[in-house]
């Protein structure tokens, strides 16, 4: 969706530029724009912060083809208060766009946004967009719905579970999306969700998964970051399946991780950065992008994929097409357990 939008607006921008060319008669047209990137961690962490940085670099390349010369600078490993200082500093130095790629930097973005109205601030997973501050969110409930559907079809016990990091915004959408998807695949299925309040506490993640296994779950979806290692340990010991999130993780547990729900963060970041640089973002719009916008894909474990019945695989692919084309709409549910109140028939358009 957003990709189309920014491309469209770019076309109009090109036309404008073309007109400027004919009117002014200048031989070259180049625009120099500075973009700052402030992630949670380091740009080479092989995970969240690197994915965002890849997106910013993609945007730079894409814009270069349109004769917009983008300089990218970054500052790593900041606390939320230091992030605000850095954001203000970049704004003072004439950066047109400041990307705050960390869920805890929302206040930094809103505060700096008030004082620097000419700078665009992009903040990941924040509740609202105001004026010159835009929130962008990987709406993972779409692909989580697909993993839930797959889990329900693979479960022999009739129970599946999700272990999630924080009961917060899009993580909750993810957990509830999974549970709703499982119900969609099998209305009689039992689903569990457990929040561990950590991205890294692998020990607690293992115990959370074990608690679900003890209650009969035989497919467990991970909606947490590095702590997922504990989920795979519990699932591996119990001989059941796990589903991963955010990046392709089957190599972490080749006999356990059936598939990974990819977020495609680089595409999301690249699109909003391009939109911001070209002044194409709609004021007040939260860019929560799901599968219709290319955010959310399924990476299969090449070995375990063979154990999925062909009929199930066909159904999963059909469901993914339906969500992409908007024939099935997955709601963003922000309160744990509310998936149970959704009328399954209302999902189909």
């Amino acid at each position, binding site marked *: 969706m957003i990709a189309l939008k920014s491309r469209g607006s770019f076309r109009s921008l090109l036309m404008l530029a073309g007109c400027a060319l004919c009117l002014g008669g200048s031989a070259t047209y180049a625009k120099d724009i500075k973009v700052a990137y402030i992630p949670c961690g380091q740009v080479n962490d092989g995970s969240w912060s690197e994915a965002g940085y890849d997106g910013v670099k993609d945007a730079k390349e894409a814009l270069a083809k349109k004769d917009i010369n983008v300089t990218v600078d970054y500052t790593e490993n900041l606390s939320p208060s230091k992030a605000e200082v850095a954001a203000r500093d970049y704004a003072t130095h004439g950066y047109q766009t400041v990307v705050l790629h960390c869920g805890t930097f929302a206040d930094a973005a809103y505060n700096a946004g008030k004082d620097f109205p000419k700078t665009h601030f992009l903040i990941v997973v924040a509740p609202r967009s105001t004026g010159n501050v835009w929130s962008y969110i990987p709406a993972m409930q779409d692909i989580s719905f697909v993993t839930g559907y797959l889990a329900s079809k693979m479960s022999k016990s009739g129970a599946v579970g999700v272990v999630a990091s924080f009961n917060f915004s899009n993580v909750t959408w993810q957990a509830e999306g999974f549970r709703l998807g499982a119900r969609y695949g099998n209305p009689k299925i039992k689903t569990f969700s457990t929040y561990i309040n950590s991205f*890294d506490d*692998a020990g607690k993640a293992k115990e959370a998964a074990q608690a679900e296994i003890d209650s009969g779950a035989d497919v467990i979806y991970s909606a947490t970051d590095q702590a997922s290692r504990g989920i795979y340990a519990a699932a591996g010991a119990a001989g059941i399946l796990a589903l991963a999130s955010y990046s392709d993780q089957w190599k972490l547990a080749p006999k356990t991780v059936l598939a990974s729900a990819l977020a495609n963060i680089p595409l999301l970041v690249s699109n909003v950065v391009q939109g911001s640089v070209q002044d194409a973002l709609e004021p007040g719009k939260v860019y929560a992008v799901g599968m219709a916008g290319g955010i959310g894909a399924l990476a299969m474990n090449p070995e375990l994929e063979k154990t999925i019945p062909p009929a199930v695989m066909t159904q999963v692919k059909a469901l993914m097409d339906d969500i992409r084309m908007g024939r099935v709409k997955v709601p963003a549910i922000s309160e744990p357990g509310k998936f149970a109140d959704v009328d399954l028939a209302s999902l189909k358009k």
Partner: protein
Amino acid sequence: MTFSDLFELAFWVPLLTASIRIATPLILASLGEAVAERAGLLNVGIEGMMALGAISGFLVAFWSGSSSIGFSASILTGGLAGLLFGLLTVVRGADQIVTGIVLNILALGLASFAYQRAFASAKDVPQLYLTSPLRVPWLSTLPVIGKPLFAQAPIVYLAYLLVPLFWLLLERSRWGLHVRAVGENPEAVDSAGIDVWHVRLQAIAIGGAMAGLAGATIAVAQVGAYVDGMIAGRGFIVLAIVVFGGWRPGRVALASLLFGAADALQLRLQVSGIGLPNQLLIGLPYLLTIVVVALVARRAGYPAAINRPYLRRRGAASRHQAVLDPSGLFADRMQANRPAAQQVLAGKPEGDEA
């Protein structure tokens, strides 16, 4: 699972099993911390020492292919980190809280650095094979308690053995008497001819070693992987557990078990879909910690000499004064210790018997 399942054995047996699993690293770390605190050393750096134990245990177990060698390495690393803490606080007389905080930052950074150096790319995925639980013959077939208590990872049985061992060591041995005495009245111990520094360094080395073993328990025996931040505040929970357990090995182990049970229970209540907000459930073990510490705080008597450096060693004062205090800044303090040192250790110093 439904609410009625809460009254079934099928709920309680796995709950007890999980409680013991979660409690094991806490038991190990808090036994060591109890010894260190009894000697007058509040080891705030325990979180970092657990992280060092986790990374060293994991790396050595990964390279050697043996978890026992990994555990040994974590004990060594933890012990050395403990001695570093001791060097700064006992020998140099630095403030224990500040030193502990600094060591935490250093240790957490070192652990992360070591992992990144060992595995060049973040895409490498070193993983340990986890051994299945070791069933103790006959005992593991006992009804109800058999499986939870006697079908666990081998490290759990080590924890069982260490609880009475630490009790004997701390409450019943001559060395334990020295430890408790240097934590209460180091001057008196000094004048009785016992080297305060030696006893304190031994105690903190044990405290660090146990923290290291606790960290390795999570990385090597439970998860089979190292992840930055995997200690996740357990070190600070241990500090609270030691206060709650009144610095006595048996009670400290029970306090660990209570915390483990609270955590195991809240995870299962979340799974049960009980109508409570999950923020409340997640916070349950921590709320419990705050409540019990608040309850025992008034009667909790920290060892009298905690966070009080003892800067004079018997018969070695003049020799060490030049090293310790070349500028003479602490001369007054050293002098002030002298009259107290004249007190003769009369009978057994006060110590709580378990």
